[in-house]
């Protein structure tokens, strides 16, 4: 018997309601198109709210020497020369405009004494560049965009989890999914689809990422043939909480270091002077994360396996004003008063720098009609993302993806999603509902443990192979998954499908990491500790039947008019 489902028709379908998705929806709606946003969570709850430090934009309000050229240079150099120059150029040039636009929509940034937007220092940025609202910039950003979307003619369908993208020939034509809170299935036909589903930090056990970051967008795009890139590049944030165990991995904003925080080991040595005498605590994240990791590994860690981060030399008033959320977070979760005591911190999985490859001008992926923006996309951050560049990214490329999708949609017509395809997908999803099946959470636990143990900050062939073996073993168990209960608000059912995304992402990450036989940015191999000129290329991944196909493409050379701003790469 055929299952009933809801049919929706729209011009532009945006999957994901974080910063990138909402910004894309605004562009598409402003272009006069019927726009539908769907999201796995409630609107306004996306992982963007977790962003704390700020938006990197070279306004030059605090350091007048700053300009887009310097921002461009910072992205290229700190991304260790595998970023796409055009994507970096667009970001650096357009982000100031996006910040002013947010302000026009009601966002309130902290101010300089003369009333302009205040900017704070952050690791790897040459100048003080991050426009911020205390340490809750992401919240301000998402609320502002949420208000804009709700006050426009945009259909928002939240708690709708997309399980499959539909393709007709070489073009994406819509998506199929299940609405959590009602248990109903949806088939949404669209002229263009924007994927803005965020990252996959949840494939690691210790992570700063929230519930939704399970790599669903990567899976959706990969399965219909979109090209992925740079997937070995996973950022570990230098400072996550370590204690109590329940909050292990929770982010401690880089703003703490930006506003004067200092790192110490258990001998009270300021060890960053050894690792990075010039930039110290404010070196790029890969450098500081490795330093913290090395200190802990060398037995100079704290009681709970971290290092100390101290800001108590600043006045309590300064701390509470600049870092109100950090103050409350440590007080309420750990019983630590950061105005008086040191914090214990250790690296935590933070950001997926790889993702769906896209065209810098339109944000279209290798699949016609499928656009990508934000953490799910790639090309900007290269081997290392600078703090503040992710919020910049979602605004600049969210807007461009929405426009790209709108332009595409204007030229295309709607195509019906075939009935049998919808029915097949519904049966597939419902096949996980059974009384006796393997618990998806137990597999997730094994997967995330294997990833954290073997595919962490320092990698080698032996451990990567171990992780790969584990992934293969877990993949075999996938078909035995099953959960009891019904269709409505059944997180167990959702977990079965998320696990598929997590397995795909983990495998791509591990296989790419095995291939890149050098150390570059966030990807550090103890068996290949040096950076190699041979590896000035990106690893791209495509689905090839049931296998993953890996290819290499040389990094596009930066044209001379831009290359003049960037220090040439040095190999030792």
């Amino acid at each position: 018997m055929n299952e009933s489902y809801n049919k929706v028709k729209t011009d532009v379908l945006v999957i994901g309601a974080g910063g990138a998705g909402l910004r894309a929806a605004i562009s598409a709606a402003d272009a006069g198109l019927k726009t539908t946003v769907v999201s796995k969570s409630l609107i306004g709850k996306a992982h963007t709210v977790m962003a704390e430090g700020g938006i990197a934009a070279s306004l030059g309000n605090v350091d007048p020497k700053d300009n887009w050229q310097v921002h461009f240079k910072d992205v290229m150099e700190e991304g260790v020369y595998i970023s796409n120059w055009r994507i970096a150029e667009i970001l650096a040039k357009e982000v100031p405009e996006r910040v002013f636009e947010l302000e026009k929509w009601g966002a309130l940034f902290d101010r300089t004494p003369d009333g302009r937007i205040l900017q704070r220092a952050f690791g790897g940025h040459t100048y003080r560049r991050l426009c911020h609202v205390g340490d809750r910039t992401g919240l301000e950003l998402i609320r502002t965009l949420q208000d804009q979307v709700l006050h426009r003619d945009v259909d928002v369908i939240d708690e709708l989890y997309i399980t499959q993208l539909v393709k007709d020939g070489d073009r994406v034509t819509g998506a199929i999914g299940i609405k959590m809170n009602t248990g109903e299935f949806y088939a949404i036909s669209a002229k263009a689809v924007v994927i803005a589903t965020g990252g996959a930090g949840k494939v690691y056990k210790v992570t700063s990422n929230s519930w939704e970051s399970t790599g669903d967008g990567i899976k959706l795009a990969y399965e219909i043939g979109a090209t992925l890139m740079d997937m070995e590049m996973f950022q570990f944030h230098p400072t996550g909480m370590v204690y109590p165990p329940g909050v292990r991995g929770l982010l401690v904003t880089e703003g703490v270091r930006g506003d004067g925080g200092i790192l110490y080991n258990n001998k009270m040595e300021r060890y960053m002077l050894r690792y990075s005498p010039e930039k110290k605590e404010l070196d790029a994240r890969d450098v500081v994360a490795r330093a913290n990791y090395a200190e802990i590994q060398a037995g100079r860690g704290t009681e709970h396996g971290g290092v100390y981060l101290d800001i108590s030399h600043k006045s309590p008033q300064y701390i509470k004003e600049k870092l109100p959320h950090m103050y409350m977070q440590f007080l309420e979760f750990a019983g630590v008063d950061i105005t008086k005591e040191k914090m214990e911190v250790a690296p935590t999985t933070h950001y997926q720098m790889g993702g769906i490859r896209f065209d810098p001008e339109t944000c279209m992926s290798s699949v016609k009609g499928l656009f990508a923006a934000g953490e799910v996309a790639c090309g900007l951050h290269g081997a290392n993302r600078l703090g503040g560049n992710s919020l910049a990214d979602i605004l600049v490329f969210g807007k461009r993806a929405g426009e790209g999708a709108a332009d595409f949609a204007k030229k295309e017509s709607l195509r019906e999603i075939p009935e049998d395809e919808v029915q097949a997908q519904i049966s597939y999803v419902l096949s996980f509902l059974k009384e006796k099946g393997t618990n998806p959470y137990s597999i997730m636990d094994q997967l995330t443990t294997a990833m954290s143990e073997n595919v962490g900050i320092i990698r080698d062939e032996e451990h990567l192979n171990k992780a790969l073996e584990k992934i293969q073993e877990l993949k075999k168990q996938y078909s035995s998954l099953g959960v009891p209960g019904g269709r409505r608000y059944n997180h167990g059912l959702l977990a079965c499908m998320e696990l598929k995304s997590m397995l795909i992402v983990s495998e791509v990450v591990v296989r790419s990491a095995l291939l890149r036989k050098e150390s570059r940015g966030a990807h550090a191999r103890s068996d290949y500790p040096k950076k190699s000129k041979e590896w000035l290329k990106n690893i791209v991944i495509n689905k090839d039947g049931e296998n993953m196909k890996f290819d290499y493409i040389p990094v596009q050379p930066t044209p001379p008019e831009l290359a003049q701003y960037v220090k040439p790469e040095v190999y030792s």
Partner: protein
Amino acid sequence: MKDVKLSIFRHDPETEKEGKFVEYTVPYVEGMVVLDAVRYVEENIDTTLAVRWNCKAAHCGSCSAEINGKPSLMCKTRVETLGDNVSVGPMKAYPLIKDLVTDVGANWKSIKRVPAFKPREGLQQPWRMQQVDIERSKEFKRCIECFLCQDVCHVMREHYEETDYFGPRHMVRAASLDMHPLDDLNRARFLNEEGGLGYCNITKCCQETCPEHIPITDNAIIPEKERAVDITYDPIARLIIGRKSRKGGN
């Protein structure tokens, strides 16, 4: 390590007439919060338990519930502060979807109805504002939309179906717009006439409950009420308006 005994409200309105509290035993982990315990049940004992959560860091406001009867965030309530009997139920001011999950969708409708931010005419960007002038609005913008203030508010709780009152969250939001230094609107009349501002009788339960410690009543609702009074009932204004209208002016 001791165990935690936890009573969780279970109810699927589609299949059951009434819900009930079911007891679960969960191993205690140091520093454990209620959300950890509930998720332990979900992952290891009964995967059909419905619970909404996102960040587990008090940033997102998804895991609102009533813990031992008190509206609280599950991610922020440490188990050891609760004694031996821990009960977790859904927010009562909202229609139940399943177990601990409620339908908070009415809030998006309220957000749509409150007039959006409207900057003054003729401003040249980049704008200039003083830090001191943005502090009040910023205070309200700490809101994580957990809707616990709505849940604890007796107007919302007892009269959810029939009241016009938008609830504390939306008063705070309107106030954050009204107190934006460059906003051009005054939403007090709207709040009074359509948002049910008058229903709030200043019991301040909302501000005591707010996990972000926003002084909702003192700094948002009372000033909006005062503005509404200024616009509507100011005796001197009425006198002047009355005199004008007697003269046949406008």
